[in-house]
């Protein structure tokens, strides 16, 4: 923000998704939006587990995205309101730690409402437990989310999925990446007290916002032969946004994701944000030569 309180950074957003080849419908959801008068971006993707045991996981993923965006919007407004003063950062960090609990609670409430109206197992409890407890596993989903302002980047992750930060020179950084996945088991919103499993990445943007922040479900990263291929894709998305504009990338995104999904067979969903000069940014000096092609 500049001295007049006008934001110097605005956000251009990207989001899209495709269903996996040979799947009837996608169990992924994702969204990218701005809030706080455009000063914060909220990104999220969710991946419903999709197998027979999780036959309502498309709903689970949808409600995961809704629950996250609802809670993250409130948090993002707080980050914008108080985040310019670094003295408030310890409290914002503490609030970030409690956000997963709110999200999980909101998700559970939505699932339990659905179960009250339309029980997944026809009102006879789970097939194995014999108790009237709702079978949350039917709705199981992962969740990856981020709040991004000019000063702070906060990311959360529960289960599979990827967050890639792309630098100006194309260097990538993945805050939660711990190496290749060794199986299909994933942490899930449907587990008891799932919020305990959520991981948090807190990053004051002391060097300015990353030029590209991309969140995706694991159907995208798994479609590449290796990790480097996935990172090259992320770098390419950011480079495309920088050179041709986010709108052009958005137009091409379904093709790119569809191409990728052919290899993984899984749904692939991506949400991204790119900083652009806001209304309070200093006007750039005209370049002596503008290359247009």
């Amino acid at each position, binding site marked *: 923000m500049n001295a007049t309180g006008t934001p110097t950074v605005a956000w251009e957003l990207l989001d899209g998704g495709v269903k996996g080849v040979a799947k009837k419908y996608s169990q992924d959801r994702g969204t990218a939006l701005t809030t706080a008068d455009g000063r914060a971006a909220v990104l999220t993707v969710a991946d419903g587990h999709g197998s027979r045991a999780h036959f309502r996981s498309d709903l689970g993923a949808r409600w995961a995205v809704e629950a996250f965006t609802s809670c993250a919007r409130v948090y993002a407004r707080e980050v914008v309101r108080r985040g310019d003063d670094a003295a408030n950062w310890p409290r914002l960090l503490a609030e970030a730690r409690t956000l997963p609990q709110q999200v999980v609670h909101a998700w559970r409430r939505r699932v339990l409402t659905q179960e009250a109206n339309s029980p997944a197992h026809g009102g006879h409890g789970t097939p194995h437990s014999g108790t009237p407890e709702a079978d949350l596993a039917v709705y199981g989903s992962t969740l990856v989310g981020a709040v991004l302002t000019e000063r702070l980047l906060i990311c959360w992750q529960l289960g599979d999925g990827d967050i890639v930060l792309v630098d100006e020179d194309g260097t990538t950084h993945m805050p939660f990446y711990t190496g290749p996945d060794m199986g299909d088991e994933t942490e899930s919103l449907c587990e008891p*007290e799932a919020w305990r499993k959520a991981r*948090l990445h807190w990053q004051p943007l002391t060097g300015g916002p990353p030029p590209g922040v991309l969140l995706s479900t694991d159907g995208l990263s798994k479609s590449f032969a290796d990790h480097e291929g996935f990172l090259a894709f992320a770098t390419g998305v950011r480079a495309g946004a920088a050179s041709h504009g986010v709108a052009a990338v958005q137009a091409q995104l379904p093709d790119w994701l569809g191409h990728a999904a052919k290899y993984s067979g899984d749904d692939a969903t991506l949400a991204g944000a790119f900083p652009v000069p806001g209304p309070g940014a200093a006007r750039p000096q005209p370049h002596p030569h503008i290359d247009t092609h």
Partner: protein
Amino acid sequence: MANGMLLAGQTLITESGDRVTVAELFGSGGQGEVYRVRTPYGDRAVKWYYPQLADARQRQILEGLIHHNWNDDRFLWPQTVVMDPDATYPGFGYLMDVRPQRYHDLPALFRRDASVAATTLRTLVAAALHTVEAYFTLHSKGIAYRDINWGNIFFDPATGDVLVCDNDNAVVEGEAAAVAGTMDFMAPELVRGDKGARPGIQTDLHSLAVLLFLLLMNHHPLDGAQALQIRCMDEAAKRRMYGTHPLFIYDPADPANRPVPGEHPTVIATWGALPKILRDLFVKTFTQGLGTPSARVRESQWRDALSRVLDAITVCVSCGRQNMTQPEGPAPDCWKCGTTVQLPPKLEVVTGRGALRTRRGIRLDPKARVYAHHLVDDPERHDFTAVVGEMTEHPQQRGRFGLTNRTTRDWTVRRDDGTVQEVGPGRTVALRPGLLLEFGGGTEAEVHA
């Protein structure tokens, strides 16, 4: 872009003129970033403050702490201020030791991370005890920490050792200091901003109790049914929850904030397995202590209770899990398998003289040990490497245990038939009810069935 304020390879300078080189970013926190740095004396860590927080007041606090020159292995204490010699990067930071890898943060415990899989009930209670002793030591030096929370305590899952980090908000008690810390750990009077309320040792006691509850119960003591009714957990909601209307989830007089089955299964289970001696302290500090700071449970009370609970931990013979048991209390049902825990014989150790005699009961399960702190009536610190006696199995008769003397002095054993025997270093005495053991220095012990 986003990867930190300092660049790898950049040189910083300490107050004594040593040059240190920035190597890599460890991570970002609420007040600054922590880097690994290379120094003439080996690798160290530097916490570099965000520019807005690197003010004269923080510098003054930091220099006061460095002046203490405190060399306690439970604290990553600031060693010296560091600055950028070229003044390209405004502000300052401080040098400290690198946190050893055996220490893990509490979020890893809460999410049951594989890195803390070695944690047992025994090491968890030991970690709580060490945490209390660490802050007790700090407080006894007249220093208030001001920012006790789950982000600045690290523990070794294998031993329960703790390491207190981010000590740079600590101030001498009574010294004017701004409110520090986060609302969920802050004493209610500070959250409300009561006139005259200042962060100090008394408010630290509330934060310490919250931390202990989190450590042992894996849940926040005020986070129950009422929090689930809050649609938007904004600052106003938190002020109400932690400041104006705090209500302990197990307040015996008001059940309105009880944990909700399905939403809070962990705390329902852990509270159910907690011995009464600790429950009573939590109830006291989170009922009376919320409104009356002087009623808060003190470190010595926590220490004594945790120490007694640690000595009473018993392994369930049915499933092999450790159980906390009420000292002097009846056998509980195992938290894991539900079988009634079989309480083994107890070694009652008596120290001190006259009316000031202290009694401690050690359950003699096969892994029990007698430590040096058992032999003094008011131990300054519980050191679980200072083993005095150890339960060992008879080499020829499995299932028969005795207590082996791990000291360099003889023990004296008196049997109820009047016979007396010396037990030299490395020798083992068979344990039977009625056996009396003299450890020397006036400390004696008796075996009870």
